[in-house]
């Protein structure tokens, strides 16, 4: 196999991955949905433990989430979520600051916690659901 060929074989996947990454980031920062509403979701150990609809919050609410390894304090308001206090060793979660976009999770690895804004869609096309 010639050297040039080898170079391409190496270069192309890397280039594709990088381009895809750039596109992914650009696309994920675009477009708020027209239908659907945002909920702040709290996942502990992978399971959804709480879901709070954000547009119904006139004031920010604060929640303390306790797990075996420690605690996290979360603030949720109409437009954003943040973890503002925690006793975890790395403090990656508090360093993340305030997140306003959907699907940008704030995670606390030692505490197995993920706080993220998700989109709930009433079935696109449906004008409402009774029940």
């Amino acid at each position, binding site marked *: 196999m010639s050297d040039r060929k080898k170079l391409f074989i190496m270069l192309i996947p890397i280039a594709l991955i990088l381009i895809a990454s750039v596109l*992914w980031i650009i696309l994920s920062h675009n477009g708020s949905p027209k239908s659907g509403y945002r909920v702040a979701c709290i996942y502990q150990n992978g399971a959804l433990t709480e879901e709070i609809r954000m547009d119904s919050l006139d004031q920010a609410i604060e929640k303390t989430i306790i797990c075996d390894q420690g605690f996290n304090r979360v603030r949720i308001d109409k437009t954003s979520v943040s973890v503002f206090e925690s006793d975890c060793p790395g403090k990656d979660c508090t360093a993340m600051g305030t997140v306003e976009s959907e*699907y940008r999770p704030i995670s606390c*690895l030692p505490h197995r916690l993920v706080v993220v804004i998700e989109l709930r869609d009433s079935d696109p096309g449906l004008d409402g659901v009774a029940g």
Partner: protein
Amino acid sequence: MRSNSRMILSKVAALGLFAAVALVLYIVESLIPSFIPIPGIKLGLANIVTLFLLIRFKPWEAGIVLLVRLVLAAAIAGQMISFLYSLAGGLLCLLSMYLLLIFTKKKWIPLVSITGALFHNFGQLCVARLLLASEYVWTYLPYLMLSGAVTGLLTGLICLFLHKKMPSPETIRGEGMQDPEADNEDAEKK
């Protein structure tokens, strides 16, 4: 026998030195505040050592140094979690760079290093996925791929520079103190 043990000694000394260097690099980079507060974004400076060892030494020697560095780093940081994290990343990085070095016959070091860094970050993300049991970790992937490419390029260039500029391979390999008699002994055994 004497030359053998001397060889081993000097090899151990050399590897120990590299492990120390890797450890120091690791500690230094963890002191640098992360511009992107996403868990796992580290410059990966310590991989300079891993790559260098893969080029100049034997792969298992690079592996040992990696393990030693990881264990010591975890002991110093006091956290088992970061050990798992770095273990997965470090091993994947090592493996991918080793294979790629064979494939490229040790050319295009920066590309090898970039690939290693991408695998390193991917490995860390996989562990995070397991620990958090949440699909959300994958949203970090594009950011980690891009930062991995940048740091990989950086470490690759540094490694390339070192490889070209460092003193003769024999000395670094720890074989410079070969006993002439050992050569005769080996020749007779064959």
